[in-house]
């Protein structure tokens, strides 16, 4: 049976354990629960009818033996030993009504459940591995064909695109997108250059408006552009520490003056 085959090493250990009383071979076990499961086999009964008390005794004897042989047991084996000693005393002594927590029977039942569950999962694992497996017992297609991805591009347009396209052609001169009208724009750099030349003369507070270049105040677009550029330039100059700026209140005229270096 595959389950047996799978358990092979465990079984042989348990046989030795049974035959030679106790040989401490901790390395063969995967932790205390595994050891307990192995020990439980020596009882040769259904795991459901297992005597947890006997099992606890066996385990404690195992740990005693290990101590005698001065073998280092991992901490979890000792934790389990302590817990089983506690369980043993609970199972042996009449229940103390003043004591809180689960009864010895409840704890024993849970341990039995854990052992049964572990055993069941081991058997299930063996059954699973005994199934026919892909690439071992049954096979997938050997010559596969890849799906070629073909990209097809379709083009689309809406009626609106069409009408706008037509309108664009027929009214070409109405639209001057993308062409910046430099004629009506003053850049910050231009304003800055201009202001650098003028600022030397600004000893006292002077309104910013008075620095706007001539001929730029008639056209609203030009006025906006030059005002923005000049203002940005004064901020730049203030940052450089060349001038000071003040404004009495919101929307009142902005005034600037030259900053005296030693001030």
């Amino acid at each position, binding site marked *: 049976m595959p389950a047996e085959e799978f358990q092979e090493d465990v079984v042989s250990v348990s046989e030795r354990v049974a035959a030679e009383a106790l040989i401490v071979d901790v390395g063969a076990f995967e932790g205390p629960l595994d050891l307990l499961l192995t020990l439980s086999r020596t009882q040769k009964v259904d795991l459901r009818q297992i005597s947890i008390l006997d099992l606890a005794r066996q385990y404690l004897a195992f740990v005693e033996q290990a101590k005698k042989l001065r073998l280092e047991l991992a901490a979890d084996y000792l934790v389990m030993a302590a817990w089983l000693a506690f369980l043993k005393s609970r199972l042996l002594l009449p229940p103390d009504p003043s004591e809180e927590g689960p009864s010895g029977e409840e704890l024993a039942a849970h341990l039995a459940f854990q052992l049964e569950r572990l055993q069941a999962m081991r058997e299930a694992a063996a059954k699973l591995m005994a199934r026919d497996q892909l690439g071992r017992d049954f096979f997938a297609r050997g010559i596969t064909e890849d799906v070629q991805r073909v990209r097809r591009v379709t083009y689309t*347009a809406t009626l609106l*695109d069409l009408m706008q396209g037509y309108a664009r052609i027929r009214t070409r001169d109405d639209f001057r997108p993308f062409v910046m009208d430099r004629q009506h724009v003053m850049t910050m750099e231009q304003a800055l250059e201009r202001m650098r030349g003028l600022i030397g003369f600004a000893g006292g507070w002077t309104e910013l408006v008075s620095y706007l270049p001539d001929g730029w105040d008639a056209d609203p677009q030009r006025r906006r552009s030059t005002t923005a550029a000049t203002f940005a330039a004064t901020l730049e100059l203030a940052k450089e520490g060349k001038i000071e700026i003040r404004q009495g209140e919101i929307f009142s005229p902005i005034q600037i003056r030259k900053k005296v270096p030693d001030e």
Partner: protein
Amino acid sequence: MNKDPKPANDSLFEAPPMGEQERMVEAIMFATAEPVTVAELIGRMPHGCDPAEALAHLRKRYDGRGVNIIKVGDAWAIRTAGDLGFLMQKETVETRKLSRAAIETLAIVAYHQPVTRAEIEEIRGVSVSRGTVDQLIELEWIRFGRRRMTPGRPVTFVVTQNFLDHFGLENARDLPGLKELRSAGLLENRPPPGANALGEAEDGDDEDDNQTELFED
């Protein structure tokens, strides 16, 4: 963990029935990564089998199916039936917006049909690339109309039924005129300053009328 009921030494026993042999050949051909020769089949199947015969049966069985058994050199393989090759391609359709040149060309054909290439170029103010016209023809949005009865008998372009379907038009005359475009806010309301670059639009809004005439037939 192969629960093979047969003992190891097959040769003492009769060969499996032909139906079984056919199954075996089928499985081997399916799983093997390369075409299989009859010699290989003999080597892999139980003693006494006749893979050549099994193969012939199998071949018949797959005749007309989605996959066929075909000969590759002196070996055999299962392959997709030739007519189903298209299933091995996965088409991904990517929708792209038509280029501006194509839209404008299409618009001109729609508004001015039947129109020659020279006329399209005159209206757009730039030459129309062959690719643009080809693309519109391929999309089945424009097609060749009658030749113009002028010197050189140039070919004309008209829009197709597909075009009308795609743009939800009953016919090309339904296309809104410039006036309507303007009132719909699709054009700036300002009249073009000065003369029109195309020389033919100086009539401005009258253009619409001209255009309407073009469609009168």
